């Protein structure tokens, strides 16, 4: 119950202003198609430099929570999911809006997001310290395998092709080795002076997530935007609350699926929303209504994608392994403030981590309140032409990358990595495993090198890294995740033919 002790920090004036600002900004950014939660958090990190770690993290946490929920606004009113996590919401949400129930769909979406989100954050509050205690007994080999799991799981699930996903992970791990080696101080792979200090995580994250979006917007050319917003009629909020609680099955399915999916590194909100929608449909006595504007569809999808947010931070805070690409970006935000997640995080920085988690709890409530009342404004912002959005994002990316170390080298790294990522994405490569490789690479390397040094004095590297109960379990997870993805890919190909 440590978290109660640190609630006071969330209710200070600065924290509340940041929480409100982050929530409103996040809702608007989330509602804007093309601005994903990951990109929003990455672009926000440079703004947190001058803040205290608590305030910086409160802003990032509020933005993460509300961008996921904000994506529902454009999914419902414009039939364009603000983020991949809101794809399932489009199915019934937009159908409801077209029937004149836009306000009701928005209210249902934010209320179910609130319930799912609060459940997810409570899971984060109660699971994290338990897992952190367990992680205390981890040795170098276990931490090494955990880092490898982070990359292989996301690599095999996120990309369209398992091989290309894993290859993206390898590219990320290689990029992480650029610069000076930590133990010997040797310069490695420094092909240009801009790479002298290695690849800085923040410009790399901004580049990998923002620049491909900018180029995608450029690639659409000079086109006339033809997005029609559906007019929203008023709907009493009390009825929406009653409706959500009368659809307990959909709410329970969405919340539980979202929470479990969030705990699995790399799976993400898109799968949580779609899986919850699918299961809610399977278990519903009104299956035929799904897709025609059924409230259960919106409730299941939205409770799932927000329930995923809290649990996706559990592996991040306890094991340094981000549960989603956005969590990976948050890890960058933590590192920038000198906070290195791991088993001792709650002992070393309780005054930072607990207010951050508590703020996510309050953020869920604010997200629901503001979401309901500013949805129409957010939908209007979402209609800002893509060419203006592209130019704004490019400017923010340039300034944000430069601000990290006041270095043009970082800007070059950002733009080169981002442009390369755009072209690679067109051929089935994915940014998420690359980012995880980049972030987890140094963790994997330091534990691998230290483990190797210890093993040479003992029974050799094979016994050190491949024997022992926990090592075998972790190696099995790596093999199973890759094997399962290859099997799924082969099955999908057979079904196609």
């Amino acid at each position, binding site marked *: 119950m440590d978290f109660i002790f640190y609630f006071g920090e969330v209710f200070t004036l600065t924290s509340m202003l940041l929480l409100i600002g982050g929530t409103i900004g996040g809702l608007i950014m989330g509602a804007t198609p093309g601005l994903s939660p990951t990109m929003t958090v990455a672009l926000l990190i440079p703004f947190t430099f001058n803040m205290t770690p608590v305030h910086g993290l409160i802003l990032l946490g509020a933005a993460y929570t509300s961008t996921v929920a904000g994506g529902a606004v454009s999914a419902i009113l414009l039939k364009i999911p603000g983020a991949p996590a809101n794809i399932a919401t489009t199915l019934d949400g937009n159908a409801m809006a077209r029937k004149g129930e836009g306000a009701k769909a928005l209210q249902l979406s934010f209320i179910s997001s609130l319930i799912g989100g609060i459940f997810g954050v409570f899971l984060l509050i109660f699971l994290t310290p338990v897992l952190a205690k367990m992680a205390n007994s981890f040795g170098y080999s276990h931490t090494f395998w955990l880092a490898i799991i982070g990359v292989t799981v996301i690599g095999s699930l996120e990309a369209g092709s398992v091989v290309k996903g894993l290859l993206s992970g390898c590219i990320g791990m290689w990029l992480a080795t650029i610069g000076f080696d930590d133990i010997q101080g040797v310069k490695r792979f420094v092909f240009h002076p801009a790479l002298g200090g290695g690849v800085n995580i923040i410009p790399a994250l901004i580049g990998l997530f923002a620049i491909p979006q900018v180029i995608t917007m450029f690639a659409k050319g000079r086109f006339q935007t033809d997005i029609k917003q559906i007019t929203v009629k008023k709907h009493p909020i009390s009825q929406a609350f009653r409706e959500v609680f009368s659809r307990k099955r959909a709410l329970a399915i969405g919340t539980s699926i979202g929470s479990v999916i969030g705990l699995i590194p790399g799976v993400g909100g898109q799968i949580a929303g779609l899986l919850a929608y699918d299961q809610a449909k399977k278990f519903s006595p009104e299956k035929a209504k799904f897709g025609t504007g059924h409230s259960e569809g919106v409730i299941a999808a939205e409770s799932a994608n927000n329930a995923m947010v809290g649990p996706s931070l559990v592996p991040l805070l306890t094991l340094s392994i981000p549960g989603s690409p956005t969590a990976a970006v948050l890890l960058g935000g933590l590192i920038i403030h000198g906070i290195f997640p791991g088993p001792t995080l709650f002992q070393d920085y309780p005054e930072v981590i607990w207010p951050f988690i508590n703020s996510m709890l309050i953020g869920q409530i604010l997200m629901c309140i503001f979401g309901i009342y500013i949805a129409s404004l957010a939908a209007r912002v979402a209609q800002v032409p893509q060419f203006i959005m592209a130019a704004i994002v*490019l400017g923010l990316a340039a300034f944000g990358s430069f601000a990290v170390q006041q270095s043009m080298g970082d800007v070059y790294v950002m733009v080169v990595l981002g442009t390369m990522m755009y072209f690679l994405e067109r051929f089935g490569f994915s940014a998420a495993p690359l980012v995880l490789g980049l972030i987890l690479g140094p963790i994997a390397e330091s534990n691998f090198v230290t483990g190797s040094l210890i093993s040479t004095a003992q029974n050799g590297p094979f016994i050190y890294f491949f024997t022992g109960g926990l090592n075998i379990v972790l190696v099995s997870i790596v093999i199973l995740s890759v094997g399962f993805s290859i099997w799924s890919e082969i099955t999908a190909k057979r079904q196609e033919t």
Partner: protein
Amino acid sequence: MNILQHKLSSGFVACIAIIVCYISFTRQPTDAYLFPRVISVFFLGLALWTFIKALLGLSKVGNGLSLTMFKNMFPGILISSIYLFIAAKSLGFYTATTIAFFLLLISYDPAPHTNLNSWTKRIIITACFIAIMYTLFAKILVVYTPRGMFI
């Protein structure tokens, strides 16, 4: 459909993998390259697998690039590259950003260039954007950006 593009992209990745592997196994001291060696073996194996698949025409994931897309993105990439690699340092960050932002609006705004209102709109949007960026980065975050010719 995009067999040649798949060959080129996977060939590019395979070339990087070969260079990384070569450097990892030839540079000294060995201890500093222990982890890169392990990574580069997997990197090379997966890159060659992808390249061979592309050579055999079996690489199908990803839609590649059409000529229209390339033509559409070309002005944007050109303006961005000149802005970030040359102008930002020589003209100063804010001047370069203003020019690049305005040029991007001109290049991608579907409104006719003969319309005076659209020009006014572009100028106002650019001015607002740069004012916000200046307030945020120069005044609030106190980031010292290159001033270029204004030094």
